[in-house]
């Protein structure tokens, strides 16, 4: 079993293995099998498309958490130029689960805030698995307030299994830190565009997720409680996570239908991790368009629209 492929992707993995084998054979012999390889590659693309067009909610959750899925850092490096990372909340410390800084989006200076899960054991620990503590949200708030002062749009990239549930988190007021961000973002005098790039889990995601335009990458997910958590409460076992994911409606398709998000950004065939460059390019294109459009709107009008939008949730 190829670990780069999820279990429902195993037919693709098998086909890919076959292609690889043929390539090796082709290199060693005089028989021309290029035609055969091309045929199989086409077949693999078709198969991928077929599998990905019928994904269940739970499968989408798995893709959103795929170990190879691009993270905030991957996008920051590809979408923005001239990025300067800025550290610390000025009160307690610097939270590595949230990366913040100033960069340029097609020349225009913007403030970038992204949740970063980290890859590989060491980096994951360093990033606290993408679970921010109060100082992370307070750093984000500090940078957003700076964006307001210097009239820079804010771009946020959401990808977290949730705010950190720990003793220190509670002691330093994780609830207040999240709540404060929600309140301030609702009236921040600069355009805010938010994109769920992987896993948008509950308050920890929302705390950098309020703005004028909310997008999701096609196979990202956004939920009020993790499917495992929901299953634990209702069925008393996390093995029912698939059912919970289905019931809650965690995919971009459902959330766009509900009017919660504005836009779904298409992913390459087989998910963002199959082609990071293509994914980053289309994310960049979307962000440029969104920021350009929103910068055109007079700020009072923008804030009124944002407020009305917030008030409309559930109506």
């Amino acid at each position: 079993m190829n670990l780069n492929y999820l279990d429902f992707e195993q037919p693709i993995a098998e086909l890919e293995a076959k292609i690889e084998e043929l390539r090796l054979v082709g290199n060693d012999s005089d028989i021309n099998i290029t035609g055969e390889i091309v045929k199989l590659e086409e077949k693999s693309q078709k198969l991928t498309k077929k599998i990905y067009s019928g994904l269940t909610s739970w499968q989408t959750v798995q893709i959103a958490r795929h170990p190879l899925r691009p993270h905030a850092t991957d996008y920051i490096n590809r979408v923005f130029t001239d990025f300067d990372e800025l550290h610390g909340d000025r009160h307690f410390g610097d939270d590595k689960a949230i990366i913040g800084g100033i960069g340029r989006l097609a020349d225009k200076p913007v403030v970038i805030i992204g949740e970063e899960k980290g890859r590989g054991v060491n980096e994951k620990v360093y990033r606290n698995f993408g679970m921010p503590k109060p100082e992370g949200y307070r750093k984000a708030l500090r940078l957003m307030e700076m964006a307001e002062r210097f009239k820079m749009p804010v771009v946020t990239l959401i990808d977290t299994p949730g705010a950190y549930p720990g003793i220190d988190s509670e002691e330093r007021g994780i609830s207040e830190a999240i709540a404060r961000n929600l309140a301030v973002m609702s009236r921040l005098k600069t355009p805010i565009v938010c994109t769920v790039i992987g896993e948008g889990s509950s308050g920890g995601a929302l705390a950098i997720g309020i703005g004028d335009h909310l997008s999701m990458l096609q196979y990202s997910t956004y939920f009020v409680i993790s499917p495992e958590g929901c299953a634990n409460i209702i069925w008393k076992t996390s093995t029912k996570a698939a059912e919970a994911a289905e019931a809650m409606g965690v995919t971009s398709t459902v959330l766009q239908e509900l009017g919660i998000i504005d836009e779904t950004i298409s992913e390459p065939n087989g998910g963002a991790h199959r082609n990071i460059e293509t994914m980053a390019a289309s994310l960049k294109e979307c962000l440029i368009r969104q920021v350009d459009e929103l910068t055109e709107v007079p700020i009072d009008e923008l804030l009124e629209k944002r407020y009305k939008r917030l008030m409309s949730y559930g109506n």
Partner: protein
Amino acid sequence: MSWLEKIRPKGPDTKTRDRTQNVPEGVWTKCPKCSAPLYRPELEKNLEVCPKCEHHLRISARRRLDIFLDKEDRQELATEVQPIDRLKFKDIKKYKDRITESQRSTGEDDALIAIKGRLKGMPVVAMAFEFSFHGGSMGYVVGERFTRAAHLALENNIPVVCFSATGGARMQEALISLMQMAKTSAVIEKLKNNGIPYISVMTDPVYGGVSASLALLGDINAAEPNARAGFAGPNIIEQTIRQKLPKGFQRAEFLLEHGAIDMIIARHKMRDTLASLLAKLTYATKSDGADATKNSI
């Protein structure tokens, strides 16, 4: 399940115990903290606070507002907002049926009651969470009622008080529930920018999405003695960090110690304390400058 529960024979034993505990039903009850037998009518008169150990028992939202507000001049708000099952959510039960069940058992439409009334003569918009209704969880109705009531307060320049008691956002409304955090936080920010006081009182328990939005955004945050409040529940934290939590963790006293709340207010003092706070907070903005607490108690 503890080892004791595992080895203890089930059946008649526990049943007999339960029966003796409940007799005579409705007249006597037991303090959940100190186990003292309590005479119901006495307990009620004492605002559901154990006279022996001062433990604050949970009370219904309606009772909460009833003992908080002046008797006269009450008007319930936003009752037109009713539950909707947008996702057609179904797990082992249909969400719709869960709602009906909660409505039947509590007599309320949903988990938040909002009333425009008076506190010692001062106009106030007061809200309370009904914890018995689906764990006091916040879905569309709670968020929308909170918001409509706050907008009314905004238009009429009336302070807002909210007593929360909740497990957090309502799973069955999924992202719609999450967005109620955004909605209520935005309207509180509006109150703040218009100089309208908002006092949040946390009563046992306050967790999750409500704690991370409207409950901690007060100009003044308060809690009842010993009330538990936090973002993540103790079980989740224990599972994550794999260690025992310190005694008193997430209790009102812990919150006070760590600077999350301004004060702890005993139920008996709730009216007096909030009236005193609000009278000072609204003094400068009141057109007639009259101090309501001076002439009416």
